[in-house]
């Protein structure tokens, strides 16, 4: 947690976070004013539950975007992982201890493969991960076209558990973000992501193991997709190959809204966390106001463009 605070303090002057925080406050105020059910403990509990999956995937996306890349395979990977987890657990509910690590290892390996392919083939990550996304999606559908499988009671309970009225999954999420923030700011490999994202050639000249760092960032994105799939399967109780379809593009929104730039080298996980909060809270409020989901899409699009243009203008000054 202290690392997140430290990151905030260091970036205080950049104002990027201030903008997102201001938007959040505005949203909470508007919510409280427009709906009497919005500012309730119970709603916030729900909200935190909702943001866990998006939060996890966006965290992974942050590493890759910081590197100057993009991961379009996360959605398919989440879908495939839920199918794997749910079917494995339907077959052997007693092997929960094995199923989850296996899912995480597989997801991490696929992520690492993405990174490796961008290096070996020298193809833009957009293309590599787009192709990979299609391959994973197709392969998953070959195995199972409809939602299926099941999860044991324990896993389902975990997803609805509360600690002092706060969902345990949300606490886990925040802990993971804090750890990620600490890692990015204070470890050699984390810092190296900024170097490689800022200028790959310069990173090489400074003797940094560029290829290893690239593979690591994509592997972490895969790992995050795997974790998201665990959260998701625990909550829905099934594996669904299509469940991640929308997640890919959704995962980019909080990253860029939070001030991480697509060119790489600048940004951080705190911004992403705030971005996730903003997007989820906005949709939650619009639901309360019975705004149709079509409008929700439109408003979310506006938020992306406005927030990023504010970041960009600020940076130019």
């Amino acid at each position: 947690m202290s690392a997140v605070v430290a990151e905030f303090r260091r970036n205080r002057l950049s104002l990027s976070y201030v903008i997102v925080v201001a938007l959040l406050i505005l949203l909470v105020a508007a919510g409280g004013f427009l709906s009497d059910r919005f500012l309730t403990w119970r709603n916030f509990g729900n909200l935190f539950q909702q943001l866990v999956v998006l939060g996890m995937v966006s965290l992974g996306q942050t590493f890759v975007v910081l590197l100057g890349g993009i991961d379009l395979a996360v959605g398919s990977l989440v879908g495939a992982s839920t199918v794997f987890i749910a079917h494995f657990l339907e077959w052997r509910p007693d092997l929960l201890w094995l199923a989850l690590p296996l899912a995480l290892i597989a997801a991490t390996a696929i992520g690492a493969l993405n990174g490796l392919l961008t290096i070996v083939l020298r193809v833009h990550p957009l293309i590599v991960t787009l192709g990979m996304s299609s391959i994973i999606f197709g392969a998953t559908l070959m195995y199972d076209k409809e939602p299926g499988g099941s999860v044991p009671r324990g896993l389902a309970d975990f997803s609805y558990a509360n600690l002092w009225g706060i969902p345990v999954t949300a606490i886990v999420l925040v802990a993971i973000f804090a750890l990620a923030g600490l890692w990015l700011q204070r470890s050699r490999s984390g810092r190296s992501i900024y170097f490689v994202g800022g200028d790959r050639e310069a990173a090489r000249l400074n003797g940094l193991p560029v290829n290893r760092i690239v593979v690591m960032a994509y592997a972490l994105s895969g790992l995050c997709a795997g974790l998201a799939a665990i959260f998701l399967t625990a909550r829905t109780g099934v594996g669904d190959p299509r469940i991640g379809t929308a997640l890919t593009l959704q995962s980019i929104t909080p990253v860029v809204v939070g001030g991480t730039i697509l060119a790489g080298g600048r940004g951080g996980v705190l911004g992403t966390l705030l971005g996730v909060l903003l997007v989820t809270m906005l949709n939650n409020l619009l639901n309360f106001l019975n705004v149709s989901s079509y409008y929700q899409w439109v408003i979310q699009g506006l938020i992306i463009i406005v927030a990023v243009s504010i970041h960009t203008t600020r940076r130019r000054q």
Partner: protein
Amino acid sequence: MVTPVIELSRIEKEYPGVKPLDRVDFAVRPGEIHALLGENGAGKSTLIRVMGGAIRPNGGSMTYLGKPVSWQSPKQARAAGIHVIHQELALFSELSVAENILVDAQPRNALGLISGRARHARAAEILAQLGVKISTHAKIDELPLADQQMVEIAKALVGEVRLLVLDEPTAVISGREVDLLFDNMRRLKREGVGIVYVSHRLEEIFEIADRVTILKDGQVAGTGPVGDLTRDEMITKMVGRRLEQIYPARRKAPAGGPDILKISNLRAGHRVRDVSFAIRPGEVVGIAGMVGSGRTEVAEVIFGTRDLDGGTIEFDGTRLDRRMPREAIRNGVGFLTENRKDEGLFLGLPISANVMAPDLAGVTRRGLIDRRGEREIALEQIRNFAVAAPSPEVKVGNLSGGNQQKVLFGRWSRIARKLLILDEPTRGVDIGAKVEIYRIVRNLAEQGVGILMISSELPEIIGLSDRIFVMSQGHVAGEIDGASATEEAIMDLAVRSLDRRESTAARLEQVA
């Protein structure tokens, strides 16, 4: 009195907090080469932009060919015959030479379509005027930089040009290419074109310019015919104080001790054909030669960013097998690349991160980066190298060129316990910062670091080096002692062996 091509009087430009131009008077006569001198930030580029219509001044007046004007856009100035060639060339690297030359004036055929044949004919005509042999079909990125520059000048000749502004055109070319450029400048001058010439190289000013105007802090510090000012007077006016000594004292005794770097029969690609030399601790070894003679490539091979085809490299008597920057860094070798923005610095990151980049392990305690330690080292290097920055948190992209270069010295001096390779260490850096860099280089050498310095500026090579190697066509053409070296001796080696090779090749062709 001839009517000047352009005359600026009491031109002012002001931004909040800064005044890049303060009541500047400046005039260029037809057929005159007028040098514009000044340190970085003195206001040269702002003045150029005012003339070219890219910036509108806040005060003062401008006449062009005797009539008062006030440009609304660069396009308007261009149409009137003012052509500005910036240091960063404005060419489309994927397009052909002809397309680039006629970018604003594509010839059309009867149907109103662009005519490829007419385009190549017209482009070839213009290039012939310039006396250069460049294929109009070649793509820009296939051309050497010097040719690209000629294409840029050719663009100016498409329409009528009355005033040509060249912003540091010789920063990226050398030797014969400079001669070709100067020949063309003289030719344009004879045709009555006024030329504004910006350069940091004073020797060139004496060679080519008729008059000189020196800017200092946005004001004119001096102006007059070139012959009226000595080199030292120019520097004094530019810097605002007298620089007692530009180059620090050389080593008194020849360097002793075992070789710190020894390369033998190095081959890499077609640029490095057979290079052998050695450097001892504490000596400054200069490498001179034309752009393209293989100078930079040798440095890259030594540091491990370029593949080696043959030969050996030994640091401190041990041969390196795994050839990559990480290994070189581990062995105490640092490399300040020619192009600091593209290849050295992380512009978006603070000074502290830039200084520590190659040595994160040095500030890692129990797996975590020690922020305070990192900050202290950065502060120390900021002090050691007099970087003008308020704190180590300042982003490197916000510093001037000279200060960026000092940050790089701050970084690599910690790493380079044994050998520091410098590729054009003072390019684009103003004279005040240059003198500081020379002092830094000499100090490092006195601490026992071997220095390998590549430079296109012969005075710098001669003034700083203990020994000089002259490279030509991938070979070491000769070695000269630094204290007795002259520019003529160096150029002689750089060109003579080149001519000999060419004539040998020609003879062989005749025989065949």
